């Protein structure tokens, strides 16, 4: 009995938080999504599927999000992994600390301010000017999906590096020696020992980055010049510009559903990957 009371007490703060910050807003949004827009904006109660029927009007936003979020996640992974590997496996303890701090430092500044640096770097007087000297004329980077991708990779890299770093750092280095001792070349050791043992880190990193990217709006707004439009941007517009709360709610609900479906599928995949290794016969 006492134990039970204590368990409840332990769960109370998180539970309350969960209820107030997640369940309640989601319920409100769900109710709104079946309503209508008021004459001068806002929400008028109704029970209609009209908002959902209108979803195709935001198809591009969903498409952009569903293309650039996974692409950004993959690109961040491809860049983060070697970095995390270097930090965890190769770097000497002193360098490890210094480099880790360097990875975190950008987080101390607002992404907004850092994005301004990128606006300059990708703008006509930045990298394109350098490319111009190299003979590549009229390369435009700013306000393109590519610029958004760069911003995404840059902004989310630490989020990807850390979980992978932790899983690689925890990895028993003697396993690598054991593999080498058993005749495996470095590449083979990487594929059969290092990589499988860092899958938890990769899975966490990808999940974190992907989920956050699905809701991203700042980077596309700043580096995409308002032309590369994510669902997040559509939501900002619907709530702040056209004040169509009902439709905005429907888009938000759809985004949450898409997110849940993708993440569930992803978890299944990761689990299957893990299970598969178990099922494979010894060869």
């Amino acid at each position, binding site marked *: 009995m006492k134990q039970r009371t204590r368990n409840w007490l332990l769960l109370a703060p998180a539970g309350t938080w969960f209820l107030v910050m997640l369940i309640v807003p989601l319920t409100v949004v769900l109710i709104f999504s079946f309503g209508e827009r008021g004459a001068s904006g806002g929400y008028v109660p109704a029970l209609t599927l009209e908002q959902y029927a209108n979803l195709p009007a935001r198809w591009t936003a969903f498409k952009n999000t569903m293309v650039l979020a996974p692409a950004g996640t993959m690109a961040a992974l491809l860049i983060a992994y070697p970095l995390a590997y270097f930090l965890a496996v190769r770097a000497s303890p002193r360098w490890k600390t210094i480099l880790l701090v360097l990875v975190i430092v950008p987080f101390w500044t607002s992404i907004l301010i850092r994005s301004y640096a990128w606006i300059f770097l990708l703008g006509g007087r930045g990298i394109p000017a350098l490319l111009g000297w190299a003979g590549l004329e009229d390369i435009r980077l700013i306000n393109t999906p590519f610029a958004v991708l760069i911003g995404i990779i840059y902004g989310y890299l630490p989020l990807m590096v850390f979980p992978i770093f932790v899983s690689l750092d925890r990895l028993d280095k*003697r396993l690598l020696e054991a593999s080498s001792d*058993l*005749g*495996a*070349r470095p590449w083979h050791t990487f594929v059969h020992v290092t990589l499988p*043992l860092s899958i938890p880190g990769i899975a966490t990193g990808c999940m974190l980055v992907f989920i956050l990217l699905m809701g991203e709006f700042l980077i596309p707004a700043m580096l995409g010049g308002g032309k590369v439009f994510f669902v997040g941007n559509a939501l900002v517009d619907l709530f702040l510009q056209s004040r169509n709360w009902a439709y905005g709610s429907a888009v938000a609900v759809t985004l949450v559903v898409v997110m849940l479906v993708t993440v569930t599928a992803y978890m299944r995949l990761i689990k299957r990957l893990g299970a598969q290794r178990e099922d494979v016969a*010894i*060869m």
Partner: protein
Amino acid sequence: MNSAGYIQPEANVRQTAIAELKGVSKHFGDVIAAQDLNLAIGEGEFLSLLGPSGCGKTTALRMLAGFEAPTSGEVLLDGEDVSALEPYHRPVNMVFQHYALFPHMTVAQNIAYGLKQRRPRLPKAVIAEKVSHALEVVRLDGYDRRRVWELSGGQQQRVALARAIVNEPKLLLLDEPMAALDRKLRKEMQLELKTLQRKLGITFVLVTHDQEEALSMSDRICIMRDGRIVQVGSPQDLYDHPSSRYVAGFVGTSNFFDGTVTARSGNLVSVRLENGMSVETSRADGIDQGQEVCISLRPEQIRLKRSGEGVPVSVTNRIFLGEHTEYIVNHQTLGEFLVLSPRQSELNEGQFDTGDLLVASWEATAALALDRT
């Protein structure tokens, strides 16, 4: 004293050398982990590296495996210099101290790992065959699909062993493989390991700081100290002819008395002990007149009698051990020392008790004058 004099591969090694360290040193910055190691390891032999913590045993082993490159000197395998060869190119396998089993693989996958690296590839059936054979050898049949973290410490150790021997390496290196096991299991495994080594005919190099383990398993023992090899020899050799006080203390137990050499005659030297007593001892190589030495006297070489020739002692303590009885006796000026009496001697002389006044004696050849280091 230079250890080199005691290492005579030609004389000590029965078979041809399969591995050899030639003047090998390893420095980690300022730390000298190994200094001028010379050691030939014969084919099929069981060699132990014995020494206190930090003396460079693991370093020597890692240079044989290829994980460390020597700072100077050569590592030979089968007569070829492999100093620059990567671990994965060496026909050598290692059993790690904490086994280093791959946690994401089954027992069978762990054991098959080395076989799958072979080029040209081995047929699957051959690999399966070898794996199940290796499991049999380490008496783990039926465990192939188990996850390694489900196994007990002893079972894990056997998987590690199987994972190494399945590759039929020319040289099997074992870094304190039994350190993590409890005493009883360790005894069992020592026996198993020795049997296995005989059966497979693979050359074993075992690192240990447990002298009993080294004495009971090895064909030869290499005693190390501060990064150097002090003496190499068979267990009996080391026991009977230690080259220094250090070795005598490391292999078996002994009583030590400091003194100075006063005279030499043939194989014997006279040593004046610190209390002024003069003792005849058998002479080890390189002991000279006037040298400060240490006399080593093994407890079982001392006889206790109620009367007769010898030094007078009183019994301070008696421990009955069945086959033997251990006495701690006290001499007025020499202090306390240990005597091991066989059962027979007690039957002859009667049982000695604490406080009894006795005489202790020994053959002149039983006492050894040794370098003090």
